[in-house]
């Protein structure tokens, strides 16, 4: 993996690299709306589209951290609005236990974050990305689970 190259920034300075797992129907559409509206948000995020937040497996989060990603954002529809009715509701329980175990193990608070963003919340999406980027940036590069050879 190369060091992240960020446009218009001093490329020798470390910038956090964040993976965002967005559900297709709400959060990804919200991100799309932000794009259409030309809303500015930090380019540190890499989006991976999934059909539903219920598709998110803890493996994705662990593997991302192991590969050296600095922060993980998982986002889905608001409870009650899931395209598949209850995907995000089952996921909510999974995320709660996952987050607590990660923090218990010593993964810094704020490295892995969860949010509900609807298709209409383009403004909110850009705001969330700004906040997450700042928070992860403040934590520094991720060393947890990373294999140093």
């Amino acid at each position: 993996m190369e060091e992240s190259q960020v446009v218009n920034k001093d490329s020798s300075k470390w910038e956090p690299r964040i993976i965002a797992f967005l559900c297709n129907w709400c959060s990804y559409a919200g991100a799309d709306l932000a794009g259409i509206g030309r809303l500015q948000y930090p380019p540190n995020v890499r989006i991976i589209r999934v059909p539903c937040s219920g598709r998110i497996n803890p493996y994705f989060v662990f593997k991302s951290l192991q590969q050296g990603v600095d922060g993980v954002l998982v986002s889905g529809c608001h409870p009650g609005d899931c395209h598949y009715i209850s995907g995000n509701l089952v996921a909510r329980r999974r995320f709660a236990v996952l987050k607590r175990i990660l923090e218990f193990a010593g993964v810094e608070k704020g490295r892995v974050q969860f949010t509900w963003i609807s298709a209409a919340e383009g403004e909110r999406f850009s705001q969330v990305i700004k906040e997450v980027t700042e928070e992860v940036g403040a934590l520094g590069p991720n060393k947890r689970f990373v294999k140093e050879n």
Partner: protein
Amino acid sequence: MKEKIIKKEQIGSWLEGLGKDYEIWAPVKKKGLVHFHHIESTKEIHFDFLNSKKTPKDLFFPQSEVLFSFAKEEVETTPQKARIIFAIRPCDAKSLALLDQVFDSEDYQDPYYVQRREGTLLLGMACTHPQRSCFCTSVKGGPFEKAHLDLLMADLGDGRYFVEALTERGEDLMEKDDSLQDPQKEERGKLAKVKEEAEKKVKSKLAMEGLEKKLDEIFDSSFWDRVHQKCLGCGICTYLCSTCHCFALLDEKDKCGVQRVRSWDSCMFPEFTLEASGHNPRISNRERMRQRVMHKFNYFVKRYGETACVGCGRCIQNCPVNMDIREIIEEIENERPLPS
């Protein structure tokens, strides 16, 4: 060959002298368990142990090793320094000779294994306290067995050790220290007595005669239905066995590039024989247990003329459900082959 006596308190300085030319690996107690570790100071050595938890095979055939890798940047490899393994037991030394049959044969020499093997001297420590689970004498070994070692030390019980060189390289190690004294007749007598007492302590005696043939006869017997029942199918017996040597080749990608890794594998795992088609010839634990026993006491014997077991007893001590290979062998000896 050369024989000497050394006092226990002199062993540290002797090894420190040798440490200038060799990396010293010795038994160290960590978290309540004894393993062979590379030591920086001889104070770390733990003398009072029955046998190590993990076998020293890891030092020649590591649980995981990178065979080669490719990346964008050059990856430097550091050359291996010559090593001495201090206080290796005769059974574990014998297991290396069995592994040599596989990794250093006429047809094929594994460069990774061979480089380590040639660069390592085995400074053995005789077993004055064989455990109840040891059965080395039933598989052509013994607590004071000299084969496959460069040097054998034996605790005489009076704060001194009898040291005997068994190879030229072993003799070289003894040349390097003046604190080693020549043994007298009295010491040789003590050694013989300690050896006799140790051999008496190996209480487990197995009838190994005709085992290979018996196994051929009972291959399809319902005996195997009973034997495997309580086995969990984990890898403890395999990974803690001195002679088990099956491995998997894996390609792993990480920040530094791609690596081909050789990693231990166990025939007790279901995926060991899982084929790409989805077919698994050893579909259940029954076949896998049978395979384990056949490999050690039949296939290896057919191929290399020796039993792939040195009687160290680690499988018996560590099996979570107390599977006991001695009982299995006894049952096989008594089993009348059933019609298939």
